[in-house]
């Protein structure tokens, strides 16, 4: 009901395109477009009204345009039944979408040098981020990776929005062979980066954060956790995050994230409840009030 919060709407599909291994769907969604900040995502209902697939699928917002009052685009690869249903949509179909959801990438106040690192479909949210950073006068360099060439997304746009773009594939079929964290040190050095942004699978985020750490750079990472609601009400999407007070809390990727400060994510403990997390088994409230609840982030 709040004006800046997410909205739910039935949005007409404008276009469905194939881009290498990805499908790109653009929907008309003025209320979402106007609220959008980079790093936020959509939750899309799949399978139609009487679908046996109850839960929405989360997708990063990849592009927002002013056409038709405001359009929103997301990119996806077919992973299972939900995405294969989505891949069959045609223009004029209606999609039930909720967005924009989640905590956006924080933008630096000053025009600093930023490296944006993406893995697979994790590249999608980096393009609007690049544009927002450029609007603030930041220098943007991209490091985009994937398993194979056709899974590196946005390689053409990349050269347009960034000073440099480095491509990495695991099989070496495009750009450097290896993982995105491999050339990262070099890019950081060459571009004199001040901050690192990253989106992709958890092991990649961990490696990127570790590398940035070596250069004592702050990172902002966008995590991918499986989500039942995307709106913060179900508590299914938690990751262990260290708060300002040094206390670890199980924070919700969908509303407290998906963007967290990399050094605050306890990557080694993802998928567990760290023994020292607030309210972990055996955990006891401290007499000095440490552990009183506060939003993690």
């Amino acid at each position: 009901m709040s004006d800046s919060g997410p909205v739910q709407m039935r949005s007409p599909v404008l276009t469905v395109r194939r881009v290498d291994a990805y499908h790109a769907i653009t929907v008309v969604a003025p209320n979402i477009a106007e609220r959008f900040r980079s790093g936020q995502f959509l939750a899309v209902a799949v399978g139609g009204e009487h679908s046996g697939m109850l839960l929405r699928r989360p997708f990063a917002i990849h592009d927002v345009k002013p056409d038709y009052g405001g359009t929103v685009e997301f990119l996806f690869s077919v992973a299972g039944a939900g995405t294969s249903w989505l891949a069959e949509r045609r223009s004029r179909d209606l999609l039930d979408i909720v967005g924009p959801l989640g905590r956006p990438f924080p933008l630096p106040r000053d025009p600093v040098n930023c490296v944006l690192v993406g893995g697979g479909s994790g590249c999608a949210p980096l393009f609007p981020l690049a544009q927002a950073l450029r609007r603030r006068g930041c220098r943007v360099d991209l490091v985009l990776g994937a398993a194979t060439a056709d899974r590196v997304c946005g390689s053409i746009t990349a050269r347009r929005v960034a000073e440099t773009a480095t491509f990495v594939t695991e099989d070496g079929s495009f750009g450097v062979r290896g993982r995105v964290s491999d050339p990262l040190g070099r890019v950081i050095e060459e571009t004199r980066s001040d901050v690192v942004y990253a989106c992709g699978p958890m092991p990649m985020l961990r490696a990127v954060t570790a590398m940035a750490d070596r250069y004592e750079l702050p990172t902002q990472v966008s995590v991918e956790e499986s989500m039942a609601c995307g709106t913060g009400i179900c508590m299914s999407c938690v990751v262990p995050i260290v708060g300002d007070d040094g206390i670890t809390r199980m924070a919700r990727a969908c509303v407290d994230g998906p963007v967290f400060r990399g050094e605050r994510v306890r990557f080694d403990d993802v998928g567990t409840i760290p023994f020292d997390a607030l309210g972990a088994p055996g955990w006891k409230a401290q007499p000095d009030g440490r552990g009183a609840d506060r939003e993690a982030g």
Partner: protein
Amino acid sequence: MSSDLRIRLGRVELGNPIMTAAGCAGTGRELARFVDIAQMGAIATKSVMLEPRAGRPSPRMAETPSGMLSSIGLQGPGIDVFLERDLPWLLSRGGTPVVSIAGGSAPEYAELARRLSEAGGVAVVEINLSCPNPADQGRDFTDDPAEAARVVHAVRSHTHSDIPVFAKLAPDVADLVGLASACVEARADGLSMVNTIRGMAIDPATLRPAVAGGLGGLSGPAIRPIAVNCVYRARAALPDVPIIGMGGVRTGADVLEFMAAGATAVAVGTVNFADPSACARILREFEESVAGRGVARVSELVGAAHRPTGASLGG
């Protein structure tokens, strides 16, 4: 003609029978971005415990046909934060709080009830009995009617007499009606049913359980026929005890189904995840359908399926 939507849960009147289910509406704040909290019959909170609690490891959920498995483990900040932050917020927005409580022993539950009573503003206390009982080898309180009754009795004794106490039951127990009766004998003012059903999914790629805990709780439309049957049986055995019915409610018609089976109020759970504005939509659908039928008071619908065929309803 518009219908009188009000219903009574013991001493408390709700503006309409449609509410959220515990653990499926966050603190209320998150849902309030999509639904006017004040418009709903009530908002049930995530089960509150005495201490903060981190819950279970992830993955915590898996989608299943028309349902989901979850294993959250009652993550929450504890009663202090609840009373300081969440309850006042709910009340400030005009919400009617049904506060769900969870504990590991009767005295823990009682302490929660006492503090909620003192705080004021709580409409109903709902006892989540699907919690492991350390004194009973970690079996849930619902697994032993005597243990469940002990908790209900303790809570009832520590709750202000104006606040009805509802005992929330799981469907997969040895003897549902026996359990319900034990709770009512221990002075529960009403029953909430059903909690999730134990289930499991195995990832066909890894051949490992899809939810970290192995076991999860099944919820959503998939379980609705089981839930409706539970409500029907409890109503048949205990016709004077109000029931909050839930399990897979997705539409206004589903609300009618639960009311006909014997529920006085009906809660929306998992469907809030799928459709964040579901509560508002369901209330609208329900209002339209009862008005269309010419039902004067929706409370007349309660238990309709138990009446002899031909007993007429509405216009």
